[in-house]
């Protein structure tokens, strides 16, 4: 079995974002780029599956749509343990564009399980995984919190609104993963970092796809009203304030 993990790279999750060019673009100065947290966890789970010989997982590939500037992110994934990587050499214009590029890669390389994160922490789309599956005409399972391979079959737990379902689905499929898929992200060991330097990154040129959306402007949230402090000796005051001012109690 071959697993593909799709990785996006995003500003470190503690970044205070700012915008430039009349609030049309992210100000990238000083930004620390990281692998999208979900993708780090899916990679971890893919590697765990590969570590267990009973699963029959033979290789874990990572794919990324992005310019040359994102190579460090890909190297990081290789250092963590991916066997090889694919980069589609294009700026990710929108989710539809990215999914279409990834679909081209997947058609050529043939994977059994494709893993995507439930959302990229930058544009919060939650859409690439499902679009990719549809481009490939294969099933997708969303909100996956556990992925196992038992007797050659994928056994999945997904979260539904108000519960969980355990299900099976034939390969190939796209698993759109969320909390629970792996405990802690695996980190790169020294050996991994050394080895990553020699692992291959295959380059694909993009196919022509028109993005369907355009981000025209960003804004920061409106500042919230300053905090009103109540006397800690008299917590009842808090309840009274909430009752009078928010009318929710």
């Amino acid at each position, binding site marked *: 079995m071959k697993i593909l993990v799709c990785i996006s790279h995003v500003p470190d999750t503690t970044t205070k974002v700012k915008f430039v060019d009349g609030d049309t673009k992210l100000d990238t100065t000083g930004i620390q780029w990281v692998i999208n947290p979900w993708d780090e966890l899916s990679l971890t789970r893919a590697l765990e599956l590969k570590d267990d010989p009973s699963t029959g997982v033979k290789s874990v590939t990572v794919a990324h749509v992005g310019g040359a500037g994102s190579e460090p992110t890909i190297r990081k994934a290789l250092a963590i343990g991916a066997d090889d990587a694919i980069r589609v050499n294009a700026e990710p214009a929108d989710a539809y564009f990215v999914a279409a590029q990834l679909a081209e890669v997947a058609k050529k390389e043939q994977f059994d399980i494709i893993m995507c994160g439930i959302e990229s922490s930058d544009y919060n789309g939650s859409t690439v995984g499902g679009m990719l599956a549809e481009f490939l005409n294969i099933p997708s399972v969303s*909100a996956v919190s556990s992925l196992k391979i038992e007797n050659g079959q994928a056994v999945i737990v997904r979260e539904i609104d108000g519960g969980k379902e355990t299900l099976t689905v034939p390969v190939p499929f796209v698993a759109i993963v969320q909390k629970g898929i792996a405990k802690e992200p695996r980190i790169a060991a020294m050996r991994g970092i050394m080895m990553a330097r020699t692992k291959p990154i295959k380059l694909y040129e993009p196919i022509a796809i028109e993005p369907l959306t355009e981000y025209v402007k960003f804004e920061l949230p409106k500042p919230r009203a300053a905090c009103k402090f109540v006397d800690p000796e008299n*917590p009842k005051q808090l309840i009274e304030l909430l009752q009078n001012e928010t009318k929710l109690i």
Partner: protein
Amino acid sequence: MSVLVYTENWDGKFKKLSFELVSYASKIAEMTGTSVTTVTIGDMADDELKTLGRYGAEKVICIKNDNLSVLDNRNYATVLAQVAQSEGSKVIIVANNNRGKAIAPMLSVKLKAAIGAGVSQLPLSINPFTVYKRTFSGSSFAHVVLKTDVKIITLAQNSFDIIESNRDVKIEKIDVQIDVPKTQVKDVQKQTGKLLLTDAEIVVSGGRGMKSPDNWGPLVELADLLGAATACSRPVSDEGWRPHEEHTGQTGKIIAPNLYITVGISGATQHIAGVSGSKYIVAINNDKSAPIFEVAQYGLVGDAQKVLPKLVEAVKEIKGK
């Protein structure tokens, strides 16, 4: 032409989320000079279907087919695409919840329709069709133009107030041709009888400042008295002090209740990412410099263990219990 809304039902019933979606769709229908058609999948009584008229639906389609009894993302997307095409819908609205997020992207590819994902307001303009959505996990918002003829919006839960606009509804029950699902469900575990975190108007949430899983009694009692759901920060669920489904934040649930009461939560960016849509935030924390006070509108600097029992008493008094 119509605005099409996918109104999920829970064992044959709609809930507040369904009414938010239909109310929202009615406003867009008004802005675009058309009407609202809803579609739901499953076995539903006419009386329940009719309730959507109260929020502006004119046509309510109910589809029943055994092959749709489990959520198979592609089957659902196929059916919704068919309905959208036969209705000539130009705007399709689904909830930005687990199910909506599972279906909308596939629908987008089928119809070559742009998605505005996690939208929290009415469109800023109809021409060009510009939506307002959360980006960078709530630390900013974007104006996004959906450039295709057909548009899909996934609407954030609890972001749009219900509007009543009584209409007569036409109910249409239809069957469809659909393949046997590839997704085979073996086991279902439902959270029964518990208010869902994503549905709750008030949420009481505990962090590491609660000190021990044994200290949760008064927090849960406070939540019960307020008709609130309980939540927690990530370390709390990682430690197993509270169940995983209670974890809010960037890597947990994203919620937008009217009132979010935090107890012993520091207010890390990744936590706030999941709750910044809350109308009011309350912080109870013994450290006056904790970042949570920067986003809270009401604060109390004090020891959680001392404060919580007093809050419980105060609420009991108000509620006359």
